[in-house]
Structures are given as structure tokens and as C-alpha cells.
């Protein structure tokens, strides 16, 4: 036995097993997320169940399992039509099913509200007249929906003007507030001028509002008459229909087309139905912008601090203590940073900014509330130790000969740093940077208290001057997972969205990780110092 251990084989075996275990767990995680995330957009069959009691159900089969008490088989069906049934899902016992069929003409509608509708199309009507164009009811519906959508696009364009107008009105209102706060009598002329401007904008706003209302009302006069599996009729305004599918008669290319269309929507559109449907664009945008903003703070500060610690600070007890403290900072629970961020950045600095620059708006806070700036700063604080450690280590790994060679030629320490050390340390700094970006992208706890919200009314970046609105709250993929998965009123329906969001977040982190490795290898090739 003793001699067997001395051969070293068991140790190798233990190490190998540990590695294999980790690999299996990682791959399982990735596999589960991939399977559930990637499959969701694929159009599924609508199955019609004839029950033994004579009722009918139409929906997608989501799961089959054995009842834990009775042992009988049961099926989970996504029956949709939340407005009719009050729920999206239904469990039926397999023994209650008389027969199943896959009706060709079954139709699935994605709607603005109340989730999907699964059923059959009866007719399309507009202004009391049946809409007949092609002879095929479904094609008619598609045409009519397309026509209505064009109109709704016009409405949306007008609404966009309203947002911009609203912003301008708000700006005037604040200016008036400011002037009044300072000195009403001295600024009365300016105030009345602003009031006039504001009124003009407001009347413009009202006019547009009415116009858009009228346009929408016109569009809403077109509707489709549908029936569910049991024959209950339902009128649905075409303006509410986002997508029409007849999954039972779709060909493979059509399904692929639908798949990519949904993916596009996911990446580029706004969420709907309390985030459980629609796109993730604001969350993706918020995550990336927050991470980039964070890098703008943590990279320079981290690198400069590391340079001081490594190149200028005298070796000694203080330097060592600082080094230890920096390493420990990386291990502080992130929620602690969140609370610190709330107290220091939001209430402390933000509150002071409000008192100094926006006293007229108080008690409504401007910077004294969570926002993308404070979130970025909080996360920068959280990730700066990673950058410091990475920079310090890559500076330390530069051979002494390089420094001495440069100094011996009459270079100052600073010149050596700029011309040789920093370029050589760049691969290491980049690695630290991207690791910290990945960490920041995945962090949720601190963000919840310093500026992330479930649904942000506007992106932190838009066409209104000054374009970046640092005080705005924003959406974040990590928080989105938490919110949709655990805070949503309709958890079962939201499940696929959770998987997809997770997949996207993992993809962003994995992509940044691979980018780090690629960049590091490229730069390493350039800066490797040969020793003979």
C-alpha cells in the first residue's frame, strides 16, 4: 500500500477526479441553460385534447410527469388565453384524456397584454365590414395586422415626439423652479418668458397627444374574431397582436424564420407584460453601459494605485498592510459595498450635489437617489482590488533587467514606466480588467440598492442633451433574472425568460472572458522577454 502511494498514481487520480467533477458540474449548468434557453423560441405544436367529460383544451405540451401521490401520469399544458381562463397553464391527468389531435388551422397569437392566445380564427373585421382579401383567413389576418402595424408605427413615431417634448417641458419647469427659488422678483421677466415657452410646448404636446389618440383609435377599429378550443368567442384588436403563428402547419424554414425573428426581438426590443415577454434590450444596454462606466473608474484608479504601491512606495510595514487590505477588499461581501454605496455615494455625495446644485427641486432628489453613476461607482469600488492585484502582479513579473537597463540609459522612473513597464504589463492589466468586468456584469445584490430597477422608463443614454443621463435608474440582466424568476406574478410563464436571460448573461461573461484570453495571448507574444 505504502509503495503504491509512493508511485504517485493515487494522487494523480484524486486530482483528476476533482477536475472531472468540476467539469461535469460546469457542463451540466451550461447544458441546462442552453437547452432551456435556446429551445424556447422554437414554435411548438398546438395539441387539442378532447377530455372524457366532453370539454376541449388547446395548447402546447410543456411537461409530462407522474403524480407523486397517485402515480398517475399527468400533462402540463400551456393553454394560454389568460384573459379567458385566468391562468396560462393547466395540469390534466392522462386518464382523463379521450383523444388528442393536431388541428392544422390552430392559431397562436402573441399579444401586447394577457399573454398568448391559442385558438381558431373566425373572421377579420374593420369598421363593421369583414376584411376579405386573399381567400385565406390567416393570410387576411396577417395582411390586416401588417396594415394596422404600419399605422401603429406612425402612432409610435408621434409618441416619440411626445417624449422629447415632455423632456423639454420638464426642463423649462425646472428652470422656472430654479429661478423662482433664487429670486422671484429679479427674474420675473425670464420666468414669464419661460412660462410662455412652456405653455407653447404644452399646447403642442396636447395637440400631438390628441392626434396620436385619434390615430390609435382609428387603428383599433380593426379587430379579429377568434374562438378558443371550446368555442368561446373573443374579439381581439389587431393593434394588440404582435405575432401570428400557425405552428401546426408551419414548414421548417418558416419555423427557423420565426425563431430568428423572436431572437431579434429579444435582443432589440423592450420588455412587455412585467418583463416576462418581449425583449431585453434595456437590460442588455444597462448592463453593458454600467460595466463600461465602471471600467472608466476602476481601470485608471486601480492601475495608478498599483503603480504607486509597486514602483514608488517604500517597502515597509505600511505598504504591506495596504497590500493586505487591498487583497481583503476583494473578499468583502458585495452587499456591504451596496450599503456603503447607498450611504456614501447616494445619500452622501448625491445628497450634497442636490443641495448644492439642485436645491430648487428638493425634496425630490436628482442625484440623491440610486442611478447608473452611483451603481458604477459602487461596483468600481468592488472591482478595483482585482485591477490593483492584477496590475501589481504583472508589474512585479517584469524582469529587473528591463528597469535597470532603462534607468542606466538616463531614463527617469516615470519614463521607464510609460515607455516600458506599462506596455509590458498591459496583458496582465487587461486580464484583471476583464475579470472585474465579468464580475461586475454578474453582480446583483449591491445594484439593487444603488440604482437598478425592474423597469426603467428611459435608457440612461438618449438623443436629449447631454445624452448621458447619469442620474437615471437602469435595468440589469442579473437583476432581471431575479425579478422575472422570483418576483413575477406569473412565474410559470416567466420561466423561459429566466433561462434566456441567464443564457445571455453567461454569454456576455463568457465572451468577455474569451476576449481577455485572446488579447492577453496576442500581447504576450509581442512583449515576451527572451532569456537567452
Amino acid at each position, binding site marked *: 500500500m505504502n509503495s503504491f502511494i509512493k508511485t504517485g498514481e493515487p494522487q494523480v487520480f484524486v486530482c483528476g477526479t476533482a477536475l472531472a467533477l468540476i467539469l461535469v458540474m460546469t457542463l451540466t449548468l451550461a447544458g441546462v441553460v442552453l437547452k432551456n434557453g435556446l429551445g424556447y423560441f422554437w414554435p411548438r405544436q398546438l395539441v387539442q385534447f378532447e377530455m372524457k367529460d366532453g370539454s376541449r383544451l388547446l395548447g402546447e405540451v410543456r411537461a409530462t410527469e407522474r403524480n407523486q401521490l397517485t402515480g398517475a401520469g399527468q400533462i402540463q399544458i400551456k393553454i394560454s388565453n389568460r384573459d379567458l381562463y385566468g391562468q396560462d397553464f393547466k395540469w390534466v391527468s392522462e386518464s382523463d384524456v379521450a383523444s388528442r389531435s393536431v388541428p392544422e388551422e390552430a392559431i397562436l397569437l402573441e399579444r401586447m397584454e394577457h399573454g398568448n392566445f391559442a385558438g381558431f380564427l373566425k373572421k377579420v373585421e374593420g369598421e363593421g365590414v369583414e376584411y376579405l382579401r386573399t381567400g385565406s383567413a390567416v393570410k387576411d389576418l396577417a395582411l390586416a395586422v401588417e396594415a394596422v402595424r404600419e399605422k401603429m408605427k406612425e402612432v409610435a413615431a408621434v409618441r416619440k415626439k411626445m417624449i422629447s417634448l415632455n423632456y423639454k417641458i420638464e426642463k423649462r419647469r425646472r428652470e422656472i423652479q430654479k429661478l423662482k427659488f433664487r429670486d422671484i422678483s429679479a427674474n420675473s421677466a425670464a420666468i414669464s418668458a419661460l412660462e410662455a415657452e412652456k405653455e407653447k410646448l404644452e399646447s403642442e404636446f396636447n395637440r400631438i397627444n390628441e392626434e396620436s389618440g385619434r390615430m390609435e383609435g382609428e387603428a383599433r377599429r380593426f379587430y379579429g374574431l377568434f374562438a378558443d378550443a371550446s368555442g368561446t368567442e373573443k374579439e381581439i384588436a389587431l393593434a394588440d397582436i404582435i405575432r401570428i403563428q400557425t405552428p401546426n402547419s408551419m414548414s421548417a424554414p418558416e419555423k427557423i424564420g420565426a425563431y430568428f425573428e423572436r431572437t431579434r426581438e429579444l435582443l432589440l426590443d423592450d420588455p412587455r407584460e412585467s418583463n416576462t415577454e418581449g425583449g431585453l434590450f434595456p437590460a442588455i444596454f444597462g448592463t453593458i453601459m454600467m460595466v463600461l462606466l465602471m471600467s472608466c473608474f476602476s481601470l485608471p484608479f486601480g492601475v495608478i494605485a498599483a503603480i504607486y504601491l509597486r514602483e514608488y512606495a517604500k517597502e515597509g510595514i505600511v505598504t504591506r498592510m495596504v497590500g493586505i487590505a487591498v487583497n481583503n477588499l476583494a473578499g468583502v461581501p458585495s452587499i456591504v459595498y451596496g450599503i456603503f454605496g447607498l450611504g456614501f455615494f447616494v445619500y452622501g455625495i448625491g445628497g450634497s450635489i442636490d443641495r448644492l446644485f439642485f436645491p430648487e427641486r428638493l425634496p425630490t432628489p436628482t442625484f440623491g437617489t440610486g442611478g447608473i453613476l452611483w451603481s458604477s461607482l459602487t461596483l468600481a469600488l468592488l472591482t478595483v482590488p482585482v485591477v490593483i492585484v492584477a496590475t501589481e502582479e504583472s508589474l512585479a513579473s517584469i524582469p529587473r*533587467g528591463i528597469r*535597470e*537597463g532603462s534607468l*542606466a540609459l*538616463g*531614463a527617469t522612473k516615470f519614463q521607464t514606466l510609460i515607455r*516600458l513597464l506599462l506596455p509590458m504589463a498591459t496583458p496582465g492589466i487587461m486580464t484583471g480588467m476583464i475579470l472585474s468586468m465579468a464580475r461586475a456584469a454578474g453582480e446583483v445584490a449591491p445594484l439593487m440598492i444603488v440604482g437598478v430597477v425592474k423597469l426603467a422608463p428611459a435608457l440612461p443614454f438618449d438623443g436629449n442633451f447631454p445624452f448621458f443621463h447619469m442620474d437615471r435608474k437602469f435595468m440589469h440582466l442579473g437583476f432581471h433574472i431575479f425579478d422575472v424568476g422570483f418576483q413575477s406574478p406569473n412565474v410559470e410563464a416567466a420561466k423561459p425568460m429566466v433561462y434566456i436571460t441567464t443564457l445571455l448573461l453567461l454569454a456576455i461573461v463568457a465572451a468577455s472572458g474569451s476576449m481577455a484570453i485572446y488579447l492577453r495571448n496576442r500581447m504576450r507574444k509581442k512583449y515576451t522577454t527572451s532569456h*537567452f
Partner: protein
Amino acid sequence: MPQTVKTDPKPILSVSGLNLFYSEKQALKDINLVMRRNQVTAFIGPSGCGKSTLLRCFNRMNDLIDSVRIDGSINFEGEEINTPSTDVITLRRRIGMVFQHSNPFPKSIYENIVYGLRIAGVKDKSTLDETVERSLRSAAIWDEVKDRLHESALGLSGGQAQRICIARAIAVNPEIILMDEPCSALDPISTFKIEELIEELKLEYTIIIVTHNMQQAARVSDVTGFFYMGELIEAGETRKIFTNPEKAQTEDYITGRFG
């Protein structure tokens, strides 16, 4: 071959009463030595005898170590250089250094050579080009690298890299070149090339070389100093040191009885 010096040339660097301490430990004890213009001075002695430490006093490289304390005088061309007010940057430009391990920067050969000029603020392209050719020719490596000046200097062999480092040192036109065991990591052929180079370089520069290799000291130097335990045991004309040393310790070392 060592040459006999007919008349002593002008002194360029003189050390008197130099003591150096690393924290408590004394590494150099009362060194008195004069180095002369256009001569090759070799420092020999066993490891840890202080010869490299003394060499690094001349361009103040010991400043990089916090715990070092130096007292005594080093006079360079009539100027005291061992004072806090000495302009170290200018001093290092006038006294260049070549290290034991070749240390080309991770840049092109061209950029390596012009590094000293660039940090001094020289921007004129023709000056830079001229310097590169002159330095590389002086370091006897022009023919080997002239076609790949803009390739990385990291791809060179050890001997070539060391000659690039010598070229880099002479590019800023120093008066003295300090060499700290420049051949200890090189094969015999590269060593031979560097030794030939030293012969040529001394026509223009003053060279102070630290070496472990006594044959090398005998081959290239005009004056040799023998160090032992931080003390300068004996210094004099190389031929005399190697054939007829005054001190028994020197003789023991040179004949290989210790060290």
C-alpha cells in the same frame, strides 16, 4: 592582448575612501582607485567580493536599493558624483552600462538603440537613423541586423542581444561604459566577439569591466583590480598583477588556489 601603457593617460574616475553598507553589513571597505581615460579596467575577485557593487556606484544604480548607504568620494572628471545633489539622469547618460544578462527591451532593434535618445527628447529622424547605424557598426553587429532593424529585438541570440545592449549604451555617446560580467551568460564564440569589440571600443571610450573570468581580464584589460571580501586587495597594470602580484592573496586567487 594587454598593452603596455607608456605614459599614464589622464584619470577620468577616481574613488577615495569609499565605504558601502547594506543595512548593517559593510560591502565595500575603504576603496581607493583611479581609472584612466581610454583604458580598460577590470575588476576581478570571487563572488560577493563587492566588485559589481563598486561598479554600480559609478552610475548610481545602488540608489535603487533603499537600504544602501555610501560614504566616501567618487570623482568623475573633477566633479563629485556621490552627493544627493548629483544629477543622476545626466550622470547615467555620461556613464553607460551593460549588464550581465542581456536585457533588450520588448521593442524593435531600432527602437532599442534610439531609446536613450528618445527619452532625452531627440525627435529628428535623420539623427536617429544615423545614430542607429553608427552604434550598430561600433558594436560590430550592423551587418547581422541591418535588414531587420524593425523586427523585435527579442528574437536575437544571446550574443547578438548583448551586442545590441552595447550598441544601445554607446548610442547616447557616454564617456565611460561599465560592463557587469557581460560575457558570463554567453558561449565562447560570442564571448570572443565581445572581447574583440572591447578592444575597439576603448579607442573611444573608457571601459570598466567586472569579470569572473581571469583569462578574460588578462586578455582585455590594461589595469586590473583584485577584490576580496569588500576590500581592494591590489590594483595595477594587468600584466604585473597576473605575472608578479605583490600580495599573496592575489597570487592565490590568480593561480586558482581559491575562489
